[in-house]
């Protein structure tokens, strides 16, 4: 690779929107599992904190299905705090005063990294469905290119929840020597039939919208907002637990004393879902939704290792902390236990905590004191093992 052109670091024209951008030249394409090729490959990412002289304090955070690189800064489109604001920042478990934290938008995404809404250099139009179908492993390959570009050999930790957790598992399997510690959170070693079923409902909702136009909507200057909103509404239900829905909304009516005997949003839950759907279409590309859901569906780590999940982790020295939430029915504790059993069978160093929470799958994104304490303890012990200064020593400086 001595003659390879260097990757070009740019600030995007709307740099506040996408953060940092790196473009890999045409001689460094991303070859996908499906036999496709993404070139030039663009990756949009954010960093927080400073890389130390030994380059040993880098943490990669992997975002979930509809997340993005804005883990801990105000989101440029929504104006809201980053998706992991509760976990990332000065003095927080992913302490930006101690660690160099990287978070990149996944391949197939829509916030600066190459995806179906990027311009296909061959046509001058958006890729649309011409973008190759990508897998979790493709996402991780692209991340590895970014980590190379940043001059980091071994990541101190790779962490993420949901689809981000799948990337964590894939990182540990694909690049065991590059992952010192790993936190797969609220995730699964493969997508279940039910998981695929929910995703298919979402995709069909998008594709049933007349404005989808066979995936070429950007060429026509329209967007399948109604379909994407319905997809989000259905998916959002799977992120919450039944008790939490009941507690928050019950059968409460929305700004009215009695039912209207119409199909207006009489119930608060209807109003809430409609709002979630509409807010989502403002920040997410419909085709990207097809691609990222497909990537999850294809995920089956054991299948890549002769059907044995333990084989995927064999011989690795990575320290693991697997976390599940007891009210998460999308990626339930049983899925995390399957990961733990495989790690045990492969002799890996593993901790496993099931956090008591009624917040469902989304629990990993909100303030859960036990989850925060677990993460803090795990990272502290890993930092000691890695020879990084303790939290108290960093503070004293």
């Amino acid at each position, binding site marked *: 690779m001595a003659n390879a052109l260097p990757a070009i670091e740019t600030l995007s024209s709307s740099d506040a929107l996408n953060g940092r951008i790196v473009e890999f030249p045409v001689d460094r394409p991303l070859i996908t599992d499906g036999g496709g090729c993404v070139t030039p490959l663009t990756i949009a990412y954010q960093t927080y904190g400073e890389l130390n002289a030994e380059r040993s304090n880098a943490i990669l955070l992997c975002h979930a299905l509809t997340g993005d690189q804005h883990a801990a800064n105000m989101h440029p489109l929504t104006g809201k705090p980053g998706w992991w604001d509760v976990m990332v920042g000065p003095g927080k478990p992913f302490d930006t005063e101690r660690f160099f934290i990287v978070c990149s938008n996944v391949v197939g995404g829509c916030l600066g990294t190459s995806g179906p809404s990027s311009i296909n250099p061959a046509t001058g139009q958006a890729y649309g469905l011409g973008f190759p179908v990508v897998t979790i492993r493709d996402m991780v390959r692209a991340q590895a290119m970014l980590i190379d570009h940043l001059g980091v050999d071994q990541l101190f930790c790779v962490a993420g929840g949901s689809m981000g957790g799948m990337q964590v598992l894939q990182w540990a399997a694909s690049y065991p020597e590059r992952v010192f510690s790993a936190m797969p959170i609220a995730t699964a070693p493969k997508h279940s039939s039910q998981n695929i079923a929910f995703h298919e409902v979402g995709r069909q909702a998008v594709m049933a919208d007349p404005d989808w136009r066979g995936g070429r909507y950007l060429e026509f200057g329209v967007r399948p907002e109604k379909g994407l909103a319905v997809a989000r509404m259905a998916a959002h239900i799977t992120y919450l637990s039944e008790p939490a829905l009941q507690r928050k909304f019950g059968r409460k009516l929305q700004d009215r004393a009695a039912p209207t005997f119409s199909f207006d949003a009489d119930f608060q839950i209807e109003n809430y879902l409609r709002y979630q759907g509409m807010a989502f279409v403002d920040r997410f590309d419909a085709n990207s939704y097809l691609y990222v859901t497909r990537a999850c569906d294809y995920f089956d780590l054991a299948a890549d290792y002769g059907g044995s999940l333990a084989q995927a982790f064999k011989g690795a020295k990575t320290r693991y902390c697997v976390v599940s939430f007891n009210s998460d029915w999308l990626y339930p504790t049983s899925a995390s236990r399957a990961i733990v059993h495989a790690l*045990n*069978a492969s002799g890996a160093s593993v*901790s*496993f*905590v099931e956090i008591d929470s009624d917040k469902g799958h989304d629990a990993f994104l909100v303030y859960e004191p036990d989850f925060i304490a*677990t993460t803090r303890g795990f990272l502290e012990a890993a930092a000691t093992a890695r020879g990084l200064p303790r939290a108290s020593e960093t503070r004293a400086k």
Partner: protein
Amino acid sequence: MNAPSFPRSGQSRPVRLDLAAVAAMVAPGSRVLDVGCGDGALLQLLAETKSVDGRGVELSQRGVNDCVAKGLSVIQGDADTDLADYPTDGFDYVILSQTLQATHHPRQVLVDMLRIGRRAIVSFPNFGHWKVRLSLLAKGRMPQTTTLAHAWYETPNIHLCTIRDFVDLVEELGAHIERGVALDHSGAPIRVNAPWWVWNLLGAQAIFLLERDAPKKISPSTAKNT
């Protein structure tokens, strides 16, 4: 005395006598699985004094969180259901401290322990202790002692046994006792050389180091049919 607000592991902390007795049975540098590891006190002791590569299984979330926060590799799990998933010969020692009597299937738990590790260390309260016997005999009530402190209706100890019961079971399981020690109510070893029945009277608790029997040699002709 000023207690530090963030106690560091292993500093000026009195070592529980029963844990020290368990630790004394573990060879340095070995791989250890502590089943029912609680807040990780034994794993920490073993890591500090014997440089073991230790893992734990603990039922309570609080216990697991405490352990992970201390940097120990601990899994939330249940001895009754989760040991089956551990690979054979994955560890040198499998330890079960003061937990056997609280499991639903103590026999199966022991079988799994001796499969996962060639050696197992088991400690349990001795229901054959003279105070227990006297209490039942004289008062006609379920015994409550320092070691067995719960009332009958709320005790987690659902499968109590005596030292003698335990010794018999070990024989049945194709294992033998390498070392054994009886402890008094404070957890201090009883330093007498005595037959089992004496220990069974005087020991409030007992700790046994078990070792799987070597597989019996079978002739090739027999092996073919198995």
